């Protein structure tokens, strides 16, 4: 039957076609290929929605569609395939929706601002979207890795879009390089998965999570390279996690993300909300059945997530540029998702992934709108008072900010709260390490509230603090439209899964639970819960969601209140100065960049130069030395030929005598 699933490849291919179109004939198209991109992504969006509904009807799809490398004689066959289950269907919708909105927004941000190189821009967007979609629908780890890498390439191209300036190329390089460092571990992980299981499929009875599970039960034997199966699976899982840490900007590989703000703002929205950064977390969710087998992996994920959430949030407190604040908030929020995954809250994390996609896209686009208005000045200290000049932007931005801060009933509240709740529950249920992560996550709520409202207040409230702020540039429908759509979503998306409300009222309104609870066997949230209990030893403590929810809400409000208290002036002062040395540390991001730059410049560079000297001097020196010695000895040898014939006669005689003597002695002639 030619069902909707037969069109799933088109979801990926449409943006790809728009990439080709923009690249090839973008110059001749109106708006530099923007319309091609919009049409393509909108088409993808529609198909995704159709897919979404098909999946909600209970259908799933897991099909190999292309053999990349066919292994003969029993060697592994490497394939591409589609895996459409509730998780990927949901993600498809999110990605295509945000991609479409970003395309539209770009009309305002790029075209209207008279940027050059638009075909390149739209080609990049198209490829970016296509890569991310390919990643989302991947049915095996290798395919996921490949698109994961392509996502990295696109981020490089788009972050470095303004290549004529010094900053963006450097930021692009850093983004690719740092994530590449993570991907190295990921690739080792992929290879290890193949070597261990002979397959890298996500779903089905021959999938590697399933095989791993069987191996732990002793029902199936796999090559674990001499380790205990669970130890080995932990190692493999952590290797793959390297890629996640890189792409999702988790500590310590988060440093690329703030720099990536050098890219055009719509790209930032795309990267941080729905594509590249989300890819990491999505990957963990995708193969959650594997991680769920290893409590060690889960704890590490949770700790990384919790720490990153807090760590990034503190840095967000002191930033001056609006996009920098958003950048650190992104890192922090992905920390929450990791915390959720590590803490056994698969649904919670997925939920947060979804809500975050909406409100973070919103915030970035809103910031983009502000930046347009401010003539590309991003310093919040030169803004102020924009509330009245750009109401649409303000209210939508406020919606996103409330969501980010986790204020009820905006989307972020529900999802973040559930993340923290799940962690707490499992932490109390016998995995005390999670409590540490929980504490960090909880503390971060306060900071989140603070920096979010500091940003809002500095940007929109008070008096304009610069000429441009007094007379901002207007924005068009193409900017406002996406903002409104996302603003609504940011406010409402959380309603799909109001766990505390469900708890209170007993209503069956946890739609996301139901959604993720069905689908392909082995990939359902129910199965994951079983695994967590049986393999990872995660047990849920009996605590209701209300109290923890109230605690975090209170903290968020406290943070927001403090910000209001400090910055709701007509002429706010830089209170952060009072932090003294701590501000310097925070402003310099705990010197994270410094040590990584130090590693690169003061360790790797001298090392490589030393190696070069060694190579030139010693390795090549030996080669040249052999040649010199040969020629020198040649020069000595030819001096024998003195030109005096008498000397020749002497040498001849001596030679002959020596020969005779030698042979005489050897042959016993005497």
């Amino acid at each position, binding site marked *: 039957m030619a069902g909707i699933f037969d069109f799933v490849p088109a979801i990926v291919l449409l943006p790809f076609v728009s990439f080709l179109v923009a690249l090839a004939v973008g110059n001749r198209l109106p708006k530099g290929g923007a319309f091609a991109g919009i049409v393509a992504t909108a088409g993808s969006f529609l198909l995704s929605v159709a897919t979404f509904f098909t999946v909600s009807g209970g259908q799933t799809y897991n099909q190999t569609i292309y053999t*990349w490398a066919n292994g003969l*004689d029993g060697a592994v066959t490497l394939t591409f395939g589609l895996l459409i289950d509730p998780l990927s269907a949901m993600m498809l919708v999110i990605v295509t929706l945000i991609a479409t909105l970003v395309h539209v927004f770009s009309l305002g941000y790029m075209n209207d601002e008279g940027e050059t190189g638009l075909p390149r821009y739209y080609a990049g967007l198209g490829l970016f979207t296509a890569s991310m979609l390919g990643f989302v629908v991947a049915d095996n780890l*290798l395919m996921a890795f490949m698109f994961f*890498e392509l996502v990295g390439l696109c981020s490089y191209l788009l972050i470095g879009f303004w290549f004529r300036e010094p900053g963006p190329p450097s930021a692009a*390089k850093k983004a690719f390089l740092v994530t590449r460092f993570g991907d*190295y571990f990921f690739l080792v992980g992929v290879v*290890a998965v193949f070597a261990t299981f002979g397959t890298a499929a996500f779903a089905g009875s021959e999938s590697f999570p399933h095989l791993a599970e069987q191996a732990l039960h002793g029902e199936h034997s796999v090559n674990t390279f001499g380790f205990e199966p669970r130890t080995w699976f932990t190692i493999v899982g952590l290797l793959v996690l390297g890629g996640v840490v890189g792409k999702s900007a988790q500590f310590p590989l988060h440093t690329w993300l703030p720099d990536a703000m050098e890219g055009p703002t719509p790209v930032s929205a795309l990267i941080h909300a729905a594509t590249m950064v989300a890819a990491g977390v999505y990957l963990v969710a995708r193969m959650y059945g594997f991680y769920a087998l290893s409590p060690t992996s889960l704890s590490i994920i949770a700790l990384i997530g919790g720490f990153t959430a807090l760590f990034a949030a503190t840095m967000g407190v002191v930033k001056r540029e609006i996009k920098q604040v958003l950048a650190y908030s992104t890192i922090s929020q992905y920390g929450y998702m990791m915390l959720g995954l590590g803490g056994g809250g698969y649904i919670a994390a997925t939920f947060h992934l979804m809500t975050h996609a909406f409100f973070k896209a919103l915030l970035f686009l809103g910031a983009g709108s502000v930046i347009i208005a401010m003539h590309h000045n991003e310093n919040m200290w030169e803004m102020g008072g924009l509330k009245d000049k750009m109401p649409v932007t303000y209210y939508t931005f406020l919606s996103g900010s409330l969501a980010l801060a986790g204020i009820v009933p905006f989307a972020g509240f529900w999802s973040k709260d559930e993340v923290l709740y799940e962690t707490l529950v499992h932490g109390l249920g016998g995995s005390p390490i999670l409590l540490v992560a929980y504490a960090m996550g909880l503390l971060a709520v306060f900071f989140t509230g603070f920096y979010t409202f500091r940003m809002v207040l500095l940007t929109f409230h008070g008096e304009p603090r610069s000429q441009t702020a007094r007379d901002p540039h207007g924005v068009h429908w193409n900017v406002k439209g996406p903002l409104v759509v996302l603003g609504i979503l940011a406010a409402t998306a959380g309603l799909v899964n109001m766990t505390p409300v469900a708890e209170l009222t007993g209503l069956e309104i946890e739609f996301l639970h139901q959604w993720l609870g069905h689908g392909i066997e082995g990939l359902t949230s129910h199965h994951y819960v079983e695994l967590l209990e049986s393999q990872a030893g995660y047990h849920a403590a009996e605590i209701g969601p209300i109290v923890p929810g109230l605690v975090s809400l209170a903290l968020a409000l406290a943070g927001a209140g403090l910000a209001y208290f400090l910055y709701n002036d007509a002429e706010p002062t830089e209170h952060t100065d009072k932090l003294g040395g701590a501000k310097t540390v925070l402003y310099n991001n705990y010197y994270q960049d410094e040590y990584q730059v130090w590693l690169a410049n003061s360790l790797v560079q001298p090392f490589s130069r030393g190696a070069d000297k060694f190579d030139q001097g010693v390795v090549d020196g030996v080669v040249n030395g052999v040649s010199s010695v040969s020629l020198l000895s040649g020069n000595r040898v030819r001096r024998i030929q003195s030109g005096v014939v008498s000397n020749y006669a002497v040498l001849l005689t001596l030679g002959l005598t020596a020969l005779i003597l030698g042979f005489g002695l050897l042959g016993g002639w005497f």
Partner: protein
Amino acid sequence: MLIEGLIAVAFVAALVVFVSPNEYAGRLAAALSLLPIVGSLYMWSQFDATGNALLGGSIAFETDFVWLTLGGLDVHWFVGLDGISMPLVVLTTILTTLAIVSAWTPIDTRQSQFYGLMLFMEANLLGVFTALDFFVWFVFWEAVLVPMYFLVGIWGGPRRKYAAIKFFVYTNIASLAMFIGFIALVFGLGDSVSSMRLPEIAMALRGGELGGFAGLDAGALKLAAFVAMFIGFGVKVPIVPLHTWLPDAHVEAPTPASVMLAGVLLKMGTYALLRFNFTMMPDVAQALVVPIALIAVISVIYGAVLALAQQDLKRIVAYSSVSSMGYVILGLIAYTTYGVGGATFQMVAHGLISGLMFMAVGVIYNTTHTRMVGDMSGIADRMPVTSGIFVAGAFGYMGLPLMAGFAGEFFIFQGAFASTVHAAMPLFTAAAMFGIVIVAGYLLLAMQRTLFGPFRFDGEYEVTEAAFHDVAPLAVLLLLVIVLGVAPDLFFQMIQQAVNPILQTGGGL
């Protein structure tokens, strides 16, 4: 007789171009070099070999007759193709044409000689990849040196004479070492072989027919011969620490010669390693797995680290070739389908990609007359198309998925990680894989400093977009890289068929 025809066409084309006037030589050479492409593609379409040519598999386009007799052993004119050599033949023909076209701009003196030598080199390269008799193979193997010497020496950079002679003598010494090792081995086989045909020798060696020779018992002889041949071929590959001729040769060589050098000549080394050491003496190779794997890892990491320190774009790519060829060695020693097959695939893939990179550097050099990273920045502003392809090529080099380099490297990694020849192979593999990070480091750094940022160029030349015929070969190569990256099975199927028989005493599939 197709193979003879292919080689003969290239030889005749070389002669014709030699005597043609300088003005037309480039066009003529390019046109004539299309004939071998057509030929090799036709052969590809008719390719029907299965199995490994050396291990009893059926051989495509085989010709075999006695050429002469040397001390009781017949030397045959014996040529043919199997799944290992077929891709390399296609690579050679295509790359030659593209290199010739890329020479139109930079080569402005003695054109007829230049293009004649290019075609002459092509003929010999085809011979290397098709010959199945040791002596025939060796003739072509050595003959490749001659045109390369001239190409570097006449049309090269400031230190071209040094580089040419270094390349010449260094690789020649290596050949001699290899020759002695191999011949000793053949005589160690005694009466069990009657000719210098490689299949016969390979089967006899694998059949355990080796006896002692010249005071060495069979085991010692095999080991000594293996080491001599490994070193001999290793120079060509090149492996660390036998690599120092390569950067010099590359830096001084004119772009088209660099393309051929990196694209095809280096593959001769790995091809020979595969054909000789790893096919004929799997037992020794596996006994030496630790040193060989170590050499591979060191080549990868050391080459990459050196590339990091370079300021000359060509030197960067040159050292990165050392690094990339280290992967091939790693794949070979793995003795798995994906390891050895991936190594073979990587030969083709790296041939295309390194050719692309050298060409791209060359196109920039044509305009700026410098390759030093510090001498320019923001070139992308003036040369957008070239820079775009440069970026694409660089990402190909970094192993971007869906480009050929990723396929090759991934196959190798996968094969090597799963290899059972030694318990530490996963560790070696993981160590070598770190090369993908360093390669990204130096290529990105170089691109950032040259292509991007504000436009700055201190030279007196005007920097403008390159001519169509300069960019076209780049685009074709890029396309091929992507095609092979998306559909590696185009070659990987036949490669596997040829490779799997090698593994039967090895670590499995």
